[in-house]
């Protein structure tokens, strides 16, 4: 039961309500600019309209860039019991996503892989659509 809620919640974390989503992914993020980073979570912000996950990423030359990844609707997550430290700062993650059209270290988050190998979202069949 807990696992179901966790999975549902984690799915929500990334993407709630696509057909009636707050705004169109494709106008803001570039599907031809996929990105994958490995880094350390610095914080998660439950600001509307989207939650954001901040990740420190070491570049090849050793400098650190703080990336931010857009996640799904925060209020739904909060109602499921998520807190700002549910993904704790300091967690090593691998995140994939699609870069913002305007560029910069900004992307729409698609999947998050945790150190134990669990993926927070990886597609597959969905529970009944709730429109």
């Amino acid at each position, binding site marked *: 039961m807990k696992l179901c809620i966790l999975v*549902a*919640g984690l*799915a*929500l974390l*990334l*993407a*709630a*309500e*696509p*057909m*009636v*989503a*707050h*705004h*169109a*992914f*494709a*106008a*803001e*993020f570039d*599907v031809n600019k*996929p990105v994958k980073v490995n880094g350390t979570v610095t914080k998660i*912000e439950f*600001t*509307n*309209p*989207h939650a954001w996950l901040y990740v420190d990423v070491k570049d090849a030359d050793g400098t650190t860039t703080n990336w931010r990844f*857009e996640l799904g*609707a925060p*209020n*739904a997550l*909060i*109602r*499921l019991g998520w807190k700002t430290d549910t993904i704790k700062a300091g967690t090593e993650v691998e995140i994939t*996503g*699609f870069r*913002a*059209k*305007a*560029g910069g270290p*900004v992307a*729409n*988050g*698609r999947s998050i892989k945790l150190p134990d190998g669990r993926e927070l*979202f990886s*597609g*597959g*069949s*969905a*529970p009944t*659509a*709730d*429109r």
Partner: protein
Amino acid sequence: MRLSNNAAVLMAMAAIVLMASAASAQSVNRLSDSQPDMQGMYTRTGVKALEAEPPFNPIDPGEKNPFSVSNREDGLGPYPRIFGQGGNVLRGGQQRAQRRVGIIFPENKKLPWRPEEDVRRKQFLLEMNPAKDLRHIELNSRCALPGLFEGEDGNNPYTFLQPPGKVVIVYDYNHTSRVIDLNRREHLGKQVRLFMGDSIGHWEGNTLVVDTTNFNGRVAYSREIPYLSEDLHTIERFTVADGNTIDYEVTIDDPKLFTGPWKVAGYFSRAAKDVESIEFACAEGSQTLQNIFGAPPAR
């Protein structure tokens, strides 16, 4: 004791009135002024729907769009098939009632577009990605007031309040609210233009009938119908079906864009008792316009 004819007739009439009001009162609670009580928090379902043969939409992540990320064969994409669980959470896991949803008139869902306006709308959609200019950005991406149709229903409940002389609907989405005046018969003057329109209402039995005009020509019906005109006139019917459900039907009459009215149905299901509103501050946290256009020049 024999009753006079008049007295007998009066008693019969009284009995009929009592029975009639008892029948309706059985299913619907009433406020002290005998209005049906629709107060409380609800999720909304339906209302937005696809017309028959929806147009190509370059910003839609849905199934039919060949450009959609969701249609990529590797199954990647940001929103592959996980729809909002928010509604279930808001209803405390209770199954919602099965009611009418979507476009109910015309039955074939072919909306009566004026041909030239349909052409314009399709061209407009094409210019939304890449966005040609600010005008071609969805209102939801701008955190503007959503009008009557957009409210991110899967995750955001609606609260109905009935203070004296009004019905007030509060959307969690973007802290939106509308006031429906029950004691006014005339709309505001034509120069007043509003995202939410100007609503006046009255009760017909258990149905709140709401007449709304004075729209500003910017609000969308859906992603595929990105604007309705200033001439939009809606008639909504909120029918208190029982303590947990409000049936909803709206007639959309926009003579600038369509040759006739069309109708959409949906419904509201009561949320679980312990659910509260959570602030949805939109503009304060939105990065959308910068992510699309880049940061605007400093002032």
